[in-house]
């Protein structure tokens, strides 16, 4: 396969005027399930393959994707991509260049304990059914349960005109469990996700019965919860909320393409933007984590990237194009969802480093505030405005965690908020998730418990 790809790259450079060419071929197998209240809506399986070709001609990118590994089809597609790049270059003021990177030849094989492709679909359905049963049987007020399951296995081949040739096994296992509960006109909703690049053994770590009960409890607890008071408030955030906060409110701003587009980190490189206890990493090397891989989709090795150390911005997430612009090293963050799309800068496993406080210590100094334990969605803009919806929340009254609160959300400005982080816990947890930036990427985020002196709490009361 790599020989075919190398020939296509060679053709782009020698015949069609490309400065650089890369081809990425994939063979993928998927299994998907959707269960609603234990009814298997459809058990689904897929076989797909295709090639993405990307070329740089006169400083502009051309990209073509075809659902075929046929050499003739690829030759015509690469010719097309080069022509398109040339057309796109016609009004270019600043030609694109890419940073140098070492060439690599590697074959990355994974050895899962339980390869999802070797597990019968019946067994996957049974796992989902036990998740469903545990969720629905917990309490009569749980009204519905939806289970989504996906596994993806296959092989990716990468070759570029500089001589890099990589074959990489791919493996993802993911599931999402959502439940709704209702009682006396109150509707609540809860969600939990599981995700791994290790193998199907992820379901052995936390049995379906435990996960199902957790989801059910979350929905039930909110039934008696009260709405939060809108306004400014001190908050203690759990690792799950810290994760989505780090990802949304900081991580996206650390993506070099967004920094270049006017994001607030652009003017803050090397500057102090957070309190002394704020240290962030984006790490693609954590074994089995949902955002881990060995090489990115530009053939650059992944790494553990320090983004902020003790409150000072130390780095950004780069692909080869932005690394060249910043005179930095590529960080291995170029990812493409599949062969239908171009690689763009994406996070991997993004987290805040733990420090030394216990949860009790974080809570005891809060006279009146909230403990936000798990999230429901989050989003941020380039100017640093963020919003994180909260799924599980409690009041803090006189230094103690009190009654549950529902439908809360927090917002603020990233730079203002990071300066207000005044204590960081010693615990640590990573959570799998999926991030949308035009394409879907599998990621993790997390951290310890933290305390923030003040954020805006959105609430209807």
């Amino acid at each position, binding site marked *: 396969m790599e020989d075919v790809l190398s020939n296509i790259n060679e053709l782009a450079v020698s015949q069609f005027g490309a400065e650089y060419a890369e081809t990425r071929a994939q063979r993928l197998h998927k299994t998907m399930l959707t269960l609603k209240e234990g009814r298997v809506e459809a058990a689904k399986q897929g076989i797909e393959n295709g090639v993405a070709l990307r070329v740089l001609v006169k400083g502009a990118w051309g990209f073509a994707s075809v659902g075929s590994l046929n050499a003739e089809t690829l030759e015509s597609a690469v010719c097309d991509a080069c022509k398109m790049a040339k057309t796109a270059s016609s009004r270019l003021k600043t030609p694109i260049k890419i940073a140098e990177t070492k060439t690599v030849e590697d074959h990355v094989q994974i050895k899962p304990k339980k390869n999802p492709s070797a597990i019968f679909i019946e067994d996957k359905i049974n796992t989902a059914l036990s998740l469903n049963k545990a969720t629905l049987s917990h309490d009569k007020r749980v009204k519905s349960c939806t289970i989504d399951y996906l596994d993806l296995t296959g092989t990716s081949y990468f070759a570029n005109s500089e001589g890099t040739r990589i074959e990489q096994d791919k493996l993802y296992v993911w599931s999402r469990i959502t439940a709704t509960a209702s009682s006396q006109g109150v509707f*609540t909703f809860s969600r939990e996700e599981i995700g791994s690049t290790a193998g199907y053994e992820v379901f052995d770590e936390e049995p379906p019965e435990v996960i199902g009960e957790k989801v059910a409890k979350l929905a039930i607890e909110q039934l008696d919860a009260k709405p939060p008071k809108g306004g400014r408030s001190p908050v203690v955030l759990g690792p799950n909320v810290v994760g989505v906060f780090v990802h949304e409110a900081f991580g996206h701003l650390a993506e070099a393409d967004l920094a270049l587009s006017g994001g607030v980190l652009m003017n803050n490189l090397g500057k102090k933007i957070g309190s002394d206890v704020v240290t962030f990493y984006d790490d693609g090397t954590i074994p089995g984590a949902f955002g881990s891989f060995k090489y990115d989709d530009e053939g650059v090795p992944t790494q553990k990237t320090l983004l902020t150390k003790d409150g000072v911005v130390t780095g950004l997430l780069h692909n080869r194009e932005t690394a060249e612009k910043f005179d930095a090293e590529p960080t291995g963050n170029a990812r493409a969802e599949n062969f239908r799309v171009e690689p763009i800068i994406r996070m991997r496993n993004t987290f805040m480093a733990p420090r030394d406080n216990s949860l009790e210590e974080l809570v005891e100094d809060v006279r009146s505030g909230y403990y936000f334990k798990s999230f429901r969605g989050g989003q941020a803009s380039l100017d640093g405005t963020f919003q994180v919806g909260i799924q599980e929340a409690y009041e803090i009254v006189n230094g103690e965690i009190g009654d549950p609160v529902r439908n809360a959300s927090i917002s603020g400005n990233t730079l203002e908020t990071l300066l207000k982080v005044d204590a960081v816990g010693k615990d640590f947890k990573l959570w799998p998730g999926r991030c949308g930036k035009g394409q879907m990427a599998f990621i993790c985020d997390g951290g310890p418990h933290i305390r923030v002196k003040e954020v805006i709490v959105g609430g209807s009361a």
Partner: protein
Amino acid sequence: MEVLEKDQMLHLAENAVKIALKKGAAEAEAYAYEGQATNVGIERGQVTKSNRVIDRGVGVRVAVDKAVGFAYTNIIASQNTIEDTILKALNAAKASKADQNWNGFPEKKPYTNTDVFDPKILELHSEDLVDLASNMLDAAVSVNKRVFPIEGGAGAAYIANAITNSNGVAAFENGTIVECSLAAVAKEKTTVTPVCFEFNAERAYDVDPVWVGKEAARLAVSALKTKRIKTETTKLVLTQFALQELLHYTLINAVKADNVQRNQSPFKDKVGEKVASENVTIFDNGLFPAGLRTWKFDGEGVPNQKTALIEKGVLRGFLYDNYTAKKEGLESTGNATRAGYLSTPSIGTTNFHITPRNKTPDQLMSEVDDGLIIYYLQGAHSSNPVSGEFSVVATPAWKIRKGEIKHATRGVMLAGNIFEVLKNVSVVANNERKMGQLVAPWLLVENVRVIGK
């Protein structure tokens, strides 16, 4: 652009159904898809790239003893892979559990013609799209030097769908979409505004890139001057951008029959009751002229139609696919939507049409003595999808005094319940536009809680 012919697409689907039946399916359905798109991309003030994606595939759904299985492949040139795919669908069905509510695939019905294919779009080359994108960029920058277009582009797409099933459905339709979009910020010293976005998408080759560029730029510049506002209960003018965000995760879920049947909708048992202000009338119209979601038939080959959801504030009905309709002894409303060939259909809107009334946007604005106009929202996806409670950030909002926009304000949160918002719609304007699944004019809403910064 070379595309598969109608006969080739239908043959692909018919062949799959035939094989599935031969290999043991009680019933079978095949969906063949072709999508071809050419795009030109803008990054940070210039056209930097062009891409072309060709995606073809087939998805096969089979039923065996009332259990359903599905498989897809994009390797359509290989008869072996297609047979393998069908075996995978059959295996999936056999591994699955019987569903007593499964009442078969849809029957054959006549279709209404639509006009969603423009051969001119098929002939667009990257050169044409570079021109389109460049005109849009030039227009944006001409508005004001402080404008910085960060991303956007122009694209032309061709989509063809063929569906056949063992009940005799054999349908084909192709259509086109052309679009251009621009996201821009305005910069002044160290101030950068939130991203302001505009776009224009059409089924026929008739887009206005200059308007898109100018409008994105105008909004960005107007976001430069900001002031804080106080926490209060106030009037909101909701533009289509805001409505699209707020409704997608709440109201639209509430009118899907599967959510109603599964006790996940506050509209359960409320047909005939007043659920919104009498100013609100909403249809789902799969045949809306030149709608972005207009097609002859849905993802199961059921004819698209116009379905009343809310008329003068009164709840009239829900959106059904074949399964949920048959479960209640009803007919599908043609709302089985597909995301290409990669998955099974699920209930979705076609063109979710909030019927316009007669006031111009200026007349609507003149009724606002004090309030906010909302374009872009952040965090709507964290709304409670069942209860409709939301708590979102406007990025930014603009303050209205005595009918005029005074200044922008950042970081304002809006909190409430979408079903209360619907009851508080006091004015519906006449300026409807298409935005994805939504076709709607501006709405004026009373009494929304706004948390100032």
